[in-house]
């Protein structure tokens, strides 16, 4: 792999803390380290750096939040500044599921199906009160929060949230990716038992 041979590029990719740690070690220790665990950490960081700056969202806009999401994508707020403008409606090509709007009971099988079709690593942002908790629709046909059926990484509050809040949500997710935040909700996720298996 090119990363181990090219010292210059690996150093650039080190987070500041790691660089300090490495410079305090002598050359031999550094070499030893690169043979054991340091290599894995570096690649993780490299992958995380790439992942966080090239989130391809699948905009699952169902309601009013979908209209505000258009604003987020639009010229004034411009999600492209965060590397997340390449919207993909095919779950196979997307790594960020942006659920913007109310999810009804009728929609649940579709939402879970789409989530399952996405390839790892995959992230979920729940935009707005309805997606996060059912919002003020405590009613017979509305799912009371999508975290009941799929694992959610970031909840963005608001009804609908302002575009700034959505950008903040995306940046929070980017930080989580860069810092390798543990995601037990994702690791322990099980498909809801009330859903029929997909043929």
């Amino acid at each position, binding site marked *: 792999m090119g990363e181990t041979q090219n010292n210059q590029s690996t150093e650039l990719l080190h987070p500041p803390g790691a660089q300090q740690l490495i410079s305090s070690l002598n050359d031999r220790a550094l070499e030893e380290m690169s043979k054991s665990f340091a290599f894995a950490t570096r690649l993780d960081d490299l992958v995380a750096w790439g992942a966080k700056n090239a989130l391809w969202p699948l905009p*699952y*806009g*169902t*309601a*009013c939040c*979908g*209209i*505000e999401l*258009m*604003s987020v994508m*639009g*010229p*004034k707020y411009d999600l492209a500044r965060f590397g997340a403008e390449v919207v993909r*409606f095919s779950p196979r090509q997307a790594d960020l599921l942006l659920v913007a*709007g*109310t999810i*009804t*009971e*009728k*929609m*649940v*099988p*579709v939402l879970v*199906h*789409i989530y399952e079709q996405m390839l790892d690593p995959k992230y979920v942002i729940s935009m707005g009160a*309805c997606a996060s908790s059912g919002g*003020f*629709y*405590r*009613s*017979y*046909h*509305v*799912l*009371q929060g999508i975290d009941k059926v799929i694992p959610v990484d970031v909840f963005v509050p608001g*009804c*609908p949230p*302002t575009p700034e809040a959505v950008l903040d949500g995306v940046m929070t997710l980017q930080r989580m990716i860069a810092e390798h935040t543990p995601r037990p909700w994702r690791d322990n996720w099980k498909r*809801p038992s*009330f*859903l*029929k298996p997909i043929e």
Partner: protein
Amino acid sequence: METTTTNDQTRDYARELGIAAAGHQFLTTPVGDDVLEINKDSVTEVFRRFKDSGKFDMLIDVTCVDHSKLTPGRKKRFDVVYHLFSTKSFSRLRVKAQVGEEETIASITPIYRGANWFEREAFDMFGVRFDGHPNLTRILTHHEFVGHPLRKDYDADQQQHCSSALPVHFQPDPNFKSEGRQLVPLNIGPSHPATHGTLRIMAEIDGETIARANVEIGFLHRCFEKMAETHPYNQVIPYTDRLNYCSAPMNNIGYCKAVERLLGVEIPQKAQAMRVILAELSRVIDHFICLGAMAVDLGALTGFFHLFTYRELVYTLFEKLCGARLTVSMTRIGGMAQDAPEGWFDDVLDAVKKLNAAVDELDRLLTGNKIWQQRTQNIGAISAEDAISWGYTGPCLRAAGVGIDLRKTQPYYMYDQLDFKIPVGTTGDVFDRYLVRVAEMKESLKIVEQVCKNVPAGDYTIRDKSIVLPEKSEVYGNIEGLMNHFMLVIKGLRPPVGDLYDATEAANGELGFYLVSDGSGRPYRLKVRPPCFAIYQSFPDSVTGGLLSDVIPIMGSMNLIAGELDR
């Protein structure tokens, strides 16, 4: 068929019909709605006569009311309520028929085909069975749902999970033959870029031609009507925002106007002016989304980005007015929530100039564009007669050549004093719908300009203590204000017992509210008549026989907003 009938003639006709048959009754409610109560067994005969005589050629709405709590002890539990409209005299008639829990009522779909989805909805929500309906299945709730949620004995928060999505399915059609053709099933949505959210289209295609099509809705059924029944009148306003969320203020206005009419109050001139400005700005941004999204679907991404720049302009105005961008909830029953900030009307005038330029630019970008013309002309054309029979209203009806706009035909607020025109198309195709929308934006901006230049002085709300909360300085400053506030919050405003139908011209067409009050602080029943619900039921008909690629522009031109479609 008579070509000119006056309102009185139509009323006389209905009255005669009411007196003629046994068990029928004609009456006018205190707020001025004409109601004909009929025996459920004569439904077919009565509607056949209305349709054939040409007196009431358009069916606006079919709904149902559960009387188990309103008039306990009544023999027959449900009222099936029909709303009729005459496109010639512009008069309206409400027809009611009582139906018991175990009884059925004849479907009027063979007479008014626009009744199809409305009857399915009444069945879904109340369990009333319509005899002779071609496809009486659930429409808004999911297929595994048990019970009928708008019955008074169904709890608002009793959720039921759905275990799977339905496979591709079609409505039964005896005339359809698939022999000798290689038909390929095709599913679009409910999460597909062209469906903008939650619509699902199913089709069988023969090469590039659509052999048959069907749609499934209800993926955004958020139970608006049940929520309205469980909230005080003023708290329903934020729910109305989320009906057609592309032009939220118009729903606020439509709802408040209905409640105000039932209360018998007229709002001050200044509140009217603010409502007109909000409504017309909303119409413009609604058309922006409709046309911008349609352009994206046809490959013109620039148009969308361009129009969104200007949509942000209007958002900024809304934000200045009340702090919210999209769902403003700015109206209250009796007027507005607060006065406009200083200089706001001048800001609006500034924005109008820019918006005018934006509409011109859109016009230059698309109207003469060859690709745009070829993708939209002679596609999805519909005759005036067909459009009326489906219950089309708004830009789609006007594109078909019927110049009905409630702002002219039954003027409300200050619309009769304003100078504006109603653009009308000829063929009803996608291109005409586009042209009508562009011309309408220009007219709306003209209206905003006129109102802004001449804002009436005065209060922004009425000061009736039984309706409107007192000012905060009163609440904190003296005991009367505090008590007034307390009583209004605890008991709520209470309209008199009765029912009414009230409609406004929203961006998509006639947005109607049928409100039944039992005199308490919450609506007993609130039915929304969403314009795109009636339009969308003609969709399978519009696309069948056409090319697959035409499905997308037809869908875009109908401007389907899931929030008001599914409620």
